[in-house]
């Protein structure tokens, strides 16, 4: 059970501002349970806020899948944001600080990448976008108690 990484996969919808608040809250709670420190939690939740908002604003809504990761004693969290919106034509450009096609600061994608340990984009025009990130807790793990 400890090695299986699909234990506790949670899927949350992203369709409104209220959903964004709920996603942030859930990620913070799960990260805390996995042993993320306060700064780590704050960084991860902020990255999540950026990506979830992109899913909503640029992708027209979608969902996020949250999976707890167990690698030996390490505890982490993987989040996959998926939408079936317009996709991103030039990923390098989108990843540039300050680049925006909307009215934002254009710091969401590049900033989120700096706030997590793993970051990947799967997107092409007309095919929607999936952005997957992972972060690892460096504090002491606080796992769910296992019964024999």
């Amino acid at each position, binding site marked *: 059970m400890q090695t299986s990484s699909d234990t506790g996969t949670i899927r949350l919808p992203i369709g409104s501002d209220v959903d964004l*608040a709920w996603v*942030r809250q859930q990620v913070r709670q799960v990260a805390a349970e996995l042993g993320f420190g306060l*700064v780590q939690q704050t960084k991860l939740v902020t990255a999540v806020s950026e990506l979830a908002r992109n899913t909503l604003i640029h992708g027209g809504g979608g969902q996020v899948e949250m999976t707890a990761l167990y690698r030996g004693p390490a505890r982490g969290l993987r989040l996959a944001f998926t939408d079936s919106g317009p996709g991103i034509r030039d990923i390098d450009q989108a990843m540039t600080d300050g680049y925006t096609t909307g009215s934002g600061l254009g*710091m969401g994608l590049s900033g989120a990448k700096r706030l997590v340990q793993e970051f990947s984009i799967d997107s092409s025009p007309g095919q929607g976008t999936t952005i997957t990130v992972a972060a690892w807790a460096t504090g002491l793990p606080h796992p769910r108690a296992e019964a024999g």
Partner: protein
Amino acid sequence: MSEQGAAEESTAVLVSEFLQRRQEQIAQRWADADLFRTVFTVSRDEAVEACKAVVDALSEAAAAGRVDDITAPGFRRVRDQLGRMAASRARTGASPGQIAGEVADLRQPVIALLRGEFPDPAGDQAQECVLALTRLTGTLRVVVMETALSAGEEVIARQREQLLEVATPVIKLWDGIVAVPLIGTLDSARSQVVMESLLNAIVAERARHAILDITGVPTVDSLVAQHLMKTVAAARLMGAECVVSGIRPAIAQTIVHLGIDLGTVVTRSSLADALAYALRRQGIVVASGPPVGVSLS
């Protein structure tokens, strides 16, 4: 008719006794079922306890001969718990159909245990008990769905409340100094309200300093930062200088990594520091006597 009724009753009693006897084993199996596992994510023990309460409820309903009755007293006792569980599943995106399926999945493990109790699992008595237990778990499913529906209504009502709770008190701290303590999420609609009430207060109070205290804002992402900067710029146009206070260390680090430059914004770590800054800028000297408390209430 009465003979059949009596037979049914004794079957129900057998099922009730079985549930009591095997409560621990059933709870151990259920604790790993989706319905419980996904709700009680922190502690498995908690899941086991919750399972036991449900087993008790089923046993009590069976003992009363009310396997089909969703109003049986046993169910009433776990209604709250089931409602919270269903609401929690619904919040994490499970559809009502999915939740119903998860309740249905509880049946198999307990039926398997029940069959094992009989020397002849294919015999009449075993079959009747299995049937009674199946009906009982079906009733449980209806109870969960019913509580899930009312819990869903509660969630919607709560969200509506959050949306209405956009009242942002602007406090006059001193002559010419106003402050807004920001609490909760700052989405676009909320930020708009904050900006408007602050600008109105600046005019009404002829304020030369406005303090935005973000101690109560859990996440500062690029949108929140953008709103803060816009508010600061708008206040400047009204002739007031803004001070942002209450940026906690974790948030300060995160803003830096995010790559956002708040360079043009005056920041202070606490509301008291921000007030001291504003007073000094206005040439007001506060005698250092007994400590001055700032009350927000």
